[in-house]
């Protein structure tokens, strides 16, 4: 990680329940504000967090009905990047086999959904997904500026 260290680490455990994604997004906002990320970038992080939480809530079918999030402020000495991990212990999925959503097709398709990961990738600087039988972990990062 080219000399980057975790300067601060905050962990949040949330129940998979309506509106809890909003609580998660506010914690993310608080950490991003702490590291003085610009307001537009904070807003992008907020939306990505909402999508990642909703995915875990809706699709993981985890038995503990909990999402664990980690917010890491990463940098050499000063905050440079916010790294957010969203983890569930659900059934997992294979991100490779997902079809990329496409607006033309979606306009004709009955299923209009399927945008969450595309939005997360579009709003964050980098996104990694690890998924398997023991659940899904999404690691997404946004530079401070």
């Amino acid at each position, binding site marked *: 990680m080219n000399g980057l260290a975790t300067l601060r680490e905050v962990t949040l455990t949330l129940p998979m329940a309506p*509106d809890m*994604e*909003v609580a998660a*997004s506010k914690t993310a906002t608080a950490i991003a504000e702490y590291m003085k990320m610009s307001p*537009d970038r904070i*807003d*992008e992080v*907020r*939306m990505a967090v*909402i*999508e990642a939480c*909703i995915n875990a809530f809706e699709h993981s079918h985890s038995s503990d009905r909990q999402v664990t999030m980690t917010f890491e402020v990463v940098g050499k000495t000063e905050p440079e990047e916010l790294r957010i991990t969203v983890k569930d212990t659900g059934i997992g999925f294979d991100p490779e086999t997902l079809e990329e*959503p*496409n*607006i*033309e097709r*979606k*306009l*004709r398709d009955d299923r*209009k*959904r399927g*945008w*969450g990961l*595309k*939005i997360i990738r*579009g*709003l964050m600087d980098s996104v990694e997904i690890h998924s398997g039988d023991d659940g899904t972990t999404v690691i997404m990062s946004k530079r401070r500026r």
Partner: protein
Amino acid sequence: MTASSNVTVERRDGVAVIYTQGYINNQAGEEVARVAYTLIDEGYKTLLINLGGTTIVNSIGISILIVIIEKMIEIDGRLAFCSLTPTIEKTFHIMGLAQYAPIYSDETAALATLRG
């Protein structure tokens, strides 16, 4: 002006403007859709969704907006958006929504073009 919990409407000279308030999740998205269908039933072919009161949306809410776009295409009408936060506008571009539903900076700009 009709009001429900999150959504209000103003009928402005051929264009119906739908105002949202707060988080657009599935419930709020469905509320917008209900209001839009009522307006379509009233004969409106041009709808403007003013998102000025909304700072967060989720992709489920947006998917429901896509249903409205589909419906407007069907009836040969038009749906436009105005007053988006930069993140919501970016999201609409990421999704390619902006090709099918123009985005205006504010209501005045939107109405000028939609009526023009």
